[in-house]
């Protein structure tokens, strides 16, 4: 029906515009919005069978990806949708209502890859099953921050000195929850040129946590006294490496030098099945305006000097000690397993 399709196109366009104008405040906001969008699309769109649905999802998802290539969350959510469709289809195919076999053995993952499931059967119960699953997924997304914060007391002991960089909502909630029952200190690196650390320091101080704000240059100097580094990240790559705010690699190296545990708080929707092969690859790094670094007041210099302002940094998995996600704590070496539960290998290439 044309009106339905145009309606769907309408909401897709709104979403794409918001994406281009960067109206989403943070990954969680973006994830929630995109899943709600998918819910609407899948609910209202006309499709006959799972194969058709998946193709349509892939098409739309690809468009989103091209609009904003460095926002990995969109790609992640698209792949989650695809995995949900596949799972529900597989379950209904078997005809039994048992839980999907989460205990896929390593052998199964390695060998059973090329079994071509035929998704073209029309199963009437598929749509409500998918919608229900998406609903559960949304609830999981919304409570991801709370689930991570609930683990705070297991990781922070009394009188610790914790270091963090920039502003991460996840880390803020984590520390705030821990501060209700434990006394500790936080050192925040301000993370130039955006200085998000200032906001975190002010918020932590208002939450009655002893905070010290330091410039980025003092990270190595202060690391000698830090007990733990807890940071948030933009995404977690398939090998367990991080795509995080610029300055995180230095922080990780300093932590390694002093053997300080490097803990990353990242909800599951940030887990991305892509790898970083080179720091120059497309979509990995973005550059913000050089005016933040060298302001245009310095007219004489600006015209004669190259100024770079990278936003992201890559942190290799050897420097990370622990990932804390809404499902619990994991080592970087376990990420591959989590990936196989979240996404299907055929969907990695959208």
């Amino acid at each position: 029906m044309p009106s339905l399709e145009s309606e769907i196109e309408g909401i897709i366009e709104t979403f794409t515009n918001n994406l281009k104008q960067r109206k989403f405040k943070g990954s969680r906001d973006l994830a929630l919005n995109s899943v709600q969008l998918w819910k609407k699309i899948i609910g209202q769109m006309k499709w006959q069978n799972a194969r058709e649905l998946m193709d349509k999802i892939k098409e739309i998802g690809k468009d989103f990806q091209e609009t904003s290539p460095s926002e990995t969350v969109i790609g992640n959510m698209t792949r989650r949708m695809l995995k949900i469709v596949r799972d529900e289809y597989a379950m209904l195919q078997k005809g039994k209502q048992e839980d999907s076999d989460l205990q896929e053995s390593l052998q199964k993952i390695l060998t059973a890859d090329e079994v071509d499931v035929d998704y073209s059967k029309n199963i009437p119960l598929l749509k409500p099953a998918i919608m229900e699953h998406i609903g559960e997924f949304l609830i999981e997304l919304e409570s991801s921050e709370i689930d991570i914060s609930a683990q705070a007391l297991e990781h922070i002991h009394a009188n610790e000195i914790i270091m963090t960089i920039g502003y991460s909502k996840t880390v803020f909630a984590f520390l705030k929850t821990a501060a209700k029952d434990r006394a500790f200190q936080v050192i925040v690196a301000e993370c130039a040129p955006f200085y998000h650390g200032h906001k975190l320091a002010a918020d932590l101080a208002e939450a009655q946590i002893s905070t010290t704000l330091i410039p980025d240059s003092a990270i190595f100097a202060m690391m000698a006294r830090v007990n733990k580094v807890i940071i948030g990240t933009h995404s977690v790559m398939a090998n367990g490496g991080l795509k995080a705010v610029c300055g995180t690699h230095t922080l990780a190296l300093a932590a390694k030098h002093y053997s300080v545990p490097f803990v990353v708080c990242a909800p599951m929707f940030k887990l991305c099945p892509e790898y970083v092969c080179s720091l120059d690859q497309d979509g990995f790094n973005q550059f913000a305006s050089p005016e933040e670094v060298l302001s245009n007041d310095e007219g004489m210099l600006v015209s004669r000097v190259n100024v770079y302002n990278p936003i992201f940094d890559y942190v290799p998995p050897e420097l990370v000690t622990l990932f804390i996600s809404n499902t619990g704590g994991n080592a970087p070496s376990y990420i591959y397993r989590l990936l196989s539960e979240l996404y299907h290998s055929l969907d990695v290439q959208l």
Partner: protein
Amino acid sequence: METGKKVQSEGSEKTKQEIMAERKAKKAEKAAKKSQPIKTTEHGAVTILSESIQTNTVKADETGKSKADLKAERRQKQEAQRAAKAASVTEGKQSVAPKVQQGKRIPDQIQADRPSVEKRLVKRYVSQKVPQLPPAERKVQLFSHLQQQERTLELLTKDLAVNQSKIHPAVIKLGLQYASGIICGSNARAVALLEAFKRVISDYSTPEQKELSRDLEVSLKPCINFLKQCRPISVSMGNVIRFLKRHITNIPSESTDVQAKKCLHEEIEKYIHENVELAGKTICEEASKKISSGDVILTYGYSSLLLQILLKAFNEDNKKFRVIVLDSSPRSEGLQFLRRLVAFKIPSVYMLISGASYVMPEVNKVFLGAHALLANGNVMSRVGSSQVALVAKAHNVPVLVCCETHKFCDRVQTDSFVFNELGNPDDLVAAVKGKPSVHSIANWRELPKLSLLNLTYDVMPGDLVTAVITELGSVPCTSVPVVLRVKHAETVQLTSP
């Protein structure tokens, strides 16, 4: 080794025995005085206390008369000790060595958390009419052993009388230049200090019945304390002061004022010429050999020596290289460095220190300046340099530190906490002033749990440094104590009678 120790202990025992004998004599005197009728006044309680405690400290216990007596005794004792020391020096140098090892003073500026030290400092400043600064409202706990004061130009000059004679006006000017950051950088501060001292020495006149070699040193003390209040003195300045004191005490007592001043002026000029100018030229030659055409060189912050090196390599030796300048708030010294590079048309790139990991894969060499080189091989430099060295090591890029030998010091430090300088915390807020997108923490003092930390220096572990380029050649970090020993031997040779 053992015989040396024995001689040491003998020498110290001798002086110890002397002291013990004098103590016994004094005790006997005290006892004799007590047998006289004691004045039962308010001092009565004090005398009973001093009896029971029987300490050796000379307190005005009974009457004003005995105070003068005790003072005269003390002076006699000091003269006797001085004579004894002079005698032992002519015998051999053994008694000098144990004194140095036993009495190594911990500098006052890292004992701000000890009230006894603070009290002593305050007393000294009051007697020398040096302005005192109020302590900072919000101190960072980890650094409570360092001076944290509210330091502004108004507070420094508030109680300074116009015509007071203790602090020379050239020194006041210098102090204010230090405090406001107009003169910044190890070399610049040392040279400016020497120039100011030249003025002080030329305006100095020996009062009657005093010797220039003793009194000049005493008159320099309030000047030095004032400078310490303006800004904690750097290692290069400390070496300058030690050098000057050594030469002042070695002035023969029969020389006239004019001769002595001339001699001191020559020494000062020689120090500047040899240790700063010639050393700089030698280091430039050496470092320029390490730069090849097509190199990408990374620097951090501002170093006057590095600027000289790069200019020489680019202009005189005609090497074509690119420079990447890293910078950090709040000081933005890299910007000053960049300006000068651009003025000389050296192709440059400018970034913040958080981007170090981004650029490091394309860097060939990292050149850093130093504030001081410590005796255990660590490098004390502007805060952030050690971070740059760490990232360079992780990417296998060689790190070359360029430092003249007058900045070497015999202090040892393993971390950046024990000995550091804390800058003005409001600088962190000032650095983001014009940016509307940044959450303003200008009201940080209203948040009792928030403190801002503005470190000045950090200590780089020696294993992050590939080589140190000095005027004595390129040495590894571990050779610093060797160089110090050689220098010490030279100075002892030069100044021995």
